[in-house]
């Protein structure tokens, strides 16, 4: 050996830490340099506008999607239809591509050691990667929202929006509602992003890591189609993708939405924290890196515990219990009667008849399920409602029948069953010609939580 331990030592200084902003900037550069991101950014800022503009001008509308049947009537329906699609497909896929790959990319490229030697702080690397993926996801979500709104307003116009209880939402209120709805959808998006980070950290270059947010989102959607108890439904991190519907009733169904947002944020925080802890524990000299499976288990168990705790808290706090779908006869009757009354006023205005108020109409509904009579409950397409109302100065009581298809998440489609002059035909004859009949078919929602639990 040419040197000895006894020789004078050149004592080198400890390295200075690089600010997170520099690492963040580098992570952004890497993300933006990927062809997938380069493709997604313009796609998210252009495609929704084209989609909304084209669909709004077609004779066939996406009536299966909430607000889809209103796309001819107002430009504000476009961004809400887009949000419905985005919650199901676009946002989970976007989070998969961005957050699900942000750590795995380093495994795939074999650049972890290079990055660690340069930055020398896993904490900073994690923060920079999480922030960079969050930034890109926000950019993509903003693109979807802005683009679909611009497309709708340019193609159809700035008309009032018919809410999910039939009341008219003025353009400014519709704008605020659209903004708020997209904002609330960020919570489950962040939850999926957190799951993406966790999958990316634990599963590395495995395709499962990349697909995890999309697979979780698919599982959550399937779960929402099942007849789950309300507390379980609200405790799932994707519920805010549905609960924003409550913004378009009067008063707004804020409680389920707030719960959905809180659950989404709790999942985002928990999944991200788990990803951080597991990332910190990783040994980057271990080529085999065989801790992935253990880490995956360590990531799953806390999230399962979070779900269990959330279910219990929601069940107790809202009084919904841990059983029951939340779809009950009384709530369905109130929802249908209220919406009918609002829409009846719209039809009255279309027909140039003297205006009446909802109070004057005094609309009531009697709903049954499956031909039964009492204590009907639960989702199904076998609901039937008969709505009754009065007009000022008229002794007779009007009545109209509806077939209802109620999905487990509380959304319903009411299909007019006559009489023809009221709700049995899709057009009404107005002084200006034929127009869509607002009472023929309409969408609505039943509030799943006990109404007594409202604050």
């Amino acid at each position: 050996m040419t040197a000895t331990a006894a020789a004078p030592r050149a004592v080198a200084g400890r390295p200075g830490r690089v600010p997170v902003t520099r690492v963040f900037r580098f992570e952004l550069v890497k993300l933006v340099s990927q062809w997938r991101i380069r493709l997604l950014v313009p796609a998210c800022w252009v495609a929704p506008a084209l989609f909304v503009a084209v669909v709004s001008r077609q004779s066939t509308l996406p009536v299966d999607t909430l607000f889809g049947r209103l796309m001819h009537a107002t430009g504000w329906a476009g961004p809400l239809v887009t949000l419905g699609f985005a919650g199901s497909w676009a946002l989970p896929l976007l989070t998969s591509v961005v957050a699900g790959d942000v750590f795995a990319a380093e495994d795939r490229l074999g650049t972890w050691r290079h990055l660690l030697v340069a930055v020398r702080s896993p904490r900073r690397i994690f923060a920079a990667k999480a922030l960079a993926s969050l930034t890109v996801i926000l950019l993509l979500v903003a693109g979807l929202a802005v683009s679909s709104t611009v497309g709708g307003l340019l193609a159809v116009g700035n008309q009032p929006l018919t809410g999910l209880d039939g009341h008219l939402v003025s353009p400014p209120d519709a704008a605020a509602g659209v903004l708020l709805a997209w904002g609330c959808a960020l919570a489950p998006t962040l939850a999926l992003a957190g799951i993406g980070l966790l999958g990316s950290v634990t599963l590395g270059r495995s395709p499962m890591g990349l697909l995890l947010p999309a697979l979780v989102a698919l599982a959550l959607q399937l779960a929402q189609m099942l007849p789950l108890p309300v507390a379980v439904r609200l405790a799932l991190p994707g519920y805010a993708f549905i609960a924003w519907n409550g913004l378009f009733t009067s008063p707004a169904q804020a409680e389920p939405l707030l719960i959905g947002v809180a659950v989404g944020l709790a999942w985002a925080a928990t999944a991200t924290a788990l990803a951080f802890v597991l990332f910190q524990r990783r040994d980057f000299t271990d080529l085999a890196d065989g801790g992935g499976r253990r880490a995956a288990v360590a990531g799953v168990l806390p999230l399962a515990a979070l779900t269990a705790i959330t279910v219990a808290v929601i069940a107790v706090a809202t009084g919904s219990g841990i059983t029951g779908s939340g779809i009950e006869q009384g709530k369905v009757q109130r929802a249908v009667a209220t919406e009918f009354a609002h829409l009846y006023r719209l039809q009255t205005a279309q027909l140039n008849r003297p205006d009446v108020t909802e109070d004057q109409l005094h609309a009531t509904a009697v709903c049954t399920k499956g031909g039964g009579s009492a204590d009907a409950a639960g989702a199904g397409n076998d609901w039937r409602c008969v709505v009754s109302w009065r007009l000022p100065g008229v002794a007779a009581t009007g009545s109209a029948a509806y077939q209802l298809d109620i999905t487990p998440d509380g959304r319903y489609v009411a299909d007019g069953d006559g009489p023809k002059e009221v709700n049995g035909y899709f057009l009404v004859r107005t002084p200006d010609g034929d127009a869509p009949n607002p009472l023929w078919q309409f969408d609505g929602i039943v509030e799943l939580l006990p109404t007594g639990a409202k604050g």
Partner: protein
Amino acid sequence: MSAILAARARGITKCYGDVVALDHVDLEVAQGHVHGLVGPNGAGKTTLLGLLLSLAVPDDGHIEILGTAVRRALDAPDGVAGFVDGPGLYPSLTARQNLAALVALRGGDPRAAGLDEALDQVGLADVADDRAHGFSLGMRQRLGLAAALLAKPRLLVLDEPSNGLDPAGKRHVHGVLTRLAADGVGVVLSSHRMDDVEALCSEVTILHTGRVAFSGPLGKLAAENRELDYRLLTSDPPAARAMAADVDGIGIIENGAADALVVRALTPALDELVTRLVRAGIALRELTPVVSPLEAAFLGLTEERGGQAMSAALSEERR
């Protein structure tokens, strides 16, 4: 010769589960020297290099880098650079962008960091603005070296830097490493190419199954070695063969070739044979070891410990 150590490891043990990657390994790398790390696959070379870069800390033993004890992962002092398990490059970025990003991550100003000079040193100036996606393995190795140079290292740690290099690339890399050592930088590199190690390194450590089989100057390794096989081409092969048979300590290896003589000998006996050939007026046209001294020593040391299987693996690798 410098008296200051760039890296010093004492009693390093590192395990991954039940696998002992390093078992009480000692290593000293002097500043101004190139230290070679050789060993069969799985010997623990990359693990040791990773510890020198402080990517992790050993389970037992201690490491000093540039005179500073490393007690936590990623806690190496300034002045350490290099790569293990291949250079970390981002294929979607150009060569220049890769280097600029690295400089920025280290807190420097890419505009004043001398990116062009570093690229020029490794012979990549012409492709500075090409994406690394299209780079060959050799170009990636050179870009990785350029990235390490930008850190102004005092200890440079390189894992098989000669992999995939063509002769021109090899010349660039060897030139850079030699200059760095001349400037006082301690370089530790692993390689399966014994000719590279012999050409570059003044000292070598041979690892085998996580343990040090040998550590010291190359000359010492050759001296400690067993007899080597040499190939001789002379102007009179029959006379040379007869002369070799008369020299004590020389064994003739029958190789079936009429014009070449292969003998097995220690250096003193070989010197005696050459002297006698010259005195007898027999021209010596070629005298080369059948395998390099380092390779022979490597094979000898690892075979002693690992048996014939290791030798077969190395031979396979050489092919």
